[in-house]
């Protein structure tokens, strides 16, 4: 395995059973993630984009083994997580943390900020005594731009942006190498989003972090990411270097997605041609046969509806799953 690969995801599948009847019989499965493979290199930010229900959040969670995957492998620094057992995974998680989407729901309202940040330190036995813990917490709070004198306050006393800083501080407490950022700015106001993004960038540079950045804001993902993967209905549709993806999108879904994003430039907006997709994404419990995008694809042919396209490297470093590319 390449030395530079920090996280390797191979054919990851995450199916959630649909139960019905009084005996809870399994009658089907929501195929939230259905065979996704990618590598995350040391020090890079891999962006993961797609619409709601495409499986990007589930992928992020399964990578950290917050879900037990249905099948497939996730390796961290060359070691497969599934082979480690529960205790092994718990110990590895010290090095892989998560920042959650909703800064209101992801902080325990009954815990003080200092305790929230100290919790991972205690769980992983990283501090010897209270004094050391206090120093470390103060240090982390400073790093994320929180006033240290607020350590005894409760989450409800903070604004959304400040709360997201608390979430970031908690993720940083164990000095991880890898952080999954699951839509960390989508609950925040526009003027606050840039503050959090700049903080994440600063921390990545200073601490040598690697991010899996999950978002639906494609402009923000382009800004942050080294490479970007596009998901649709549980499958990876396209994956390439960030600028390459935005300047030379190959998959018809990526093209449509990019053309749907309005650019804050009125004269340019008036000239832009839009590829409007008809209809809504199908249900992941009952995905279409063949290519999953075929039901909404503007260029689909019969073959697309029958045979699922292979995810292949069309141009060096530029992967795509489409028969017609």
């Amino acid at each position, binding site marked *: 395995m390449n030395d530079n690969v920090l996280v390797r995801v191979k054919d990851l599948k995450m199916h959630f059973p649909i139960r019905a009847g009084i005996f809870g019989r399994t009658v089907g499965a929501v195929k939230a993630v259905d065979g996704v493979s990618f590598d995350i290199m040391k020090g890079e930010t891999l962006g993961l984009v797609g*619409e*709601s229900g495409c499986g990007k959040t589930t992928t992020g969670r399964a990578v950290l083994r917050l879900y037990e995957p249905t099948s497939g492998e996730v390796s961290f620094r060359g070691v497969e997580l599934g082979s480690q057992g529960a205790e092994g995974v718990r110990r590895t998680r010290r090095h892989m943390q998560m920042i959650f989407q909703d800064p209101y729901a992801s902080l325990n309202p009954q815990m003080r900020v200092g305790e929230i940040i100290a919790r991972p330190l205690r769980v992983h036995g990283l501090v010897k005594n209270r004094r050391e813990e206090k120093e470390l917490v103060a240090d982390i709070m400073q790093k994320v731009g929180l006033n240290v004198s607020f350590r005894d306050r409760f989450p409800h006393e903070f*604004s959304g*942006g400040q709360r997201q800083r608390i979430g970031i501080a908690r993720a940083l407490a164990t000095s991880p190498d890898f952080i999954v950022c699951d839509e960390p700015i989508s609950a925040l*106001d*526009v*003027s*606050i*989003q*840039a*503050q959090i*993004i*700049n903080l994440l*960038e600063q921390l990545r540079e200073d601490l040598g972090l690697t991010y899996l950045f999950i978002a*639906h804001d*494609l*402009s*923000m993902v*382009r*800004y942050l990411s080294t490479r970007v993967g596009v998901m649709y209905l549980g499958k990876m549709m396209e994956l390439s270097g960030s*600028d390459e993806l*935005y*300047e030379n999108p190959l998959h018809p879904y990526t093209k*449509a*997605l*990019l*053309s*749907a*994003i*309005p*650019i*804050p*430039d*009125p*004269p*340019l*907006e008036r000239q832009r041609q*839009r590829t*409007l*997709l008809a209809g*809504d994404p199908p249900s992941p419990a009952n995905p279409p046969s063949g290519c999953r995008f075929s039901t909404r694809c503007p260029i689909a042919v019969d073959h697309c509806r029958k045979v699922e396209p292979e995810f292949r490297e069309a141009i060096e470093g530029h992967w795509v799953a489409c028969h017609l590319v």
Partner: protein
Amino acid sequence: MIDGSSPSSVAEYGRDEPAPRSASRLLEVRDLETKFYTADGIVNALNGISYSVDKGECLAIVGESGSGKTVGVLSILKLIQSPPGRIVGGEILFKGTDLLKLDDRALRKVRGEAISVIFQDPMTSLNPVMRVGAQITENIHAHENLTHRQARAKAADLLGMVGIPTPSRRLDDYPHQFSGGMRQRVMIAMALSCSPQLIIADEPTTALDVTIQAQIVELIKKLQEELGTAVIWISHDLGVVARLADTVAVMYAGHIVEKAPVDELYARPAHPYTIGLLNSLPRLDARVRTKLQTIGGLPPNLLGVLKGCPFVPRCRFATDICREQNPPITEAAPGHAIACWHNQLMS
């Protein structure tokens, strides 16, 4: 809106004498003030805002949560929950009639018939236990004298017009049988049902995915052009606004701080807050990765009276006068009004 015939300052607008009104003027809001009387004190949600909408125009009102953009338009139809909310001052002239002076009965005729609203979240604004056909015809029956059969036929036409396939069959479906984007189309059909002259769209695409957002934006743009309906579009997304709006008003802490035609606003933003907002956005079409410019600090708490300009704590141009007096909104260039003591400096 400021045009050639208006006085140079909105602050001068109609205390006693009405401002000159062009024939195409549909709605004119003057010095509108709304407060919420809560247990914690008085929340000054809207501090005297003035704007106008012409026939067929799309005015976008941009601002962050708590800036008063939603309260501002819901006040037009007196849809503010009272108590605790109360409209304490101003005039809302719709084709010359002050809506604030109308009784409930007369106001009900305006709501839904002359002015209608599309709300942000289509799931909570549709009745979950009522078939969508019944929800649309309810509005038609309230305003027009049609038979049940005629109203149903009209409802089906409306659903077809907003792009719902096999509309006559879908009339008997419940809201949960529609996807998010389709539900928003139902809301738009309801809003259009009595051919209003003005539609207020309160962040209608915020709850939707980008490809569905693009569908809804194009739909409203098309309907606006075909039917000549005026639209007030409330949003925090400066991209969507660039696509849709003719005129943009930027709100901050219950004030309109800048207002200009859309091209002018994006090309020459003049208020420090607008400049900050535009600079804090990364662009989809930009390769360069310079650090995003941020607006430091937080929006102010609107509880109690603020002294001076509300943007002072976050403004890098602030001086003594800004801390003392709130700047009136004045016209800095033709059609371009801003509320800032230092606008000349910036231009």
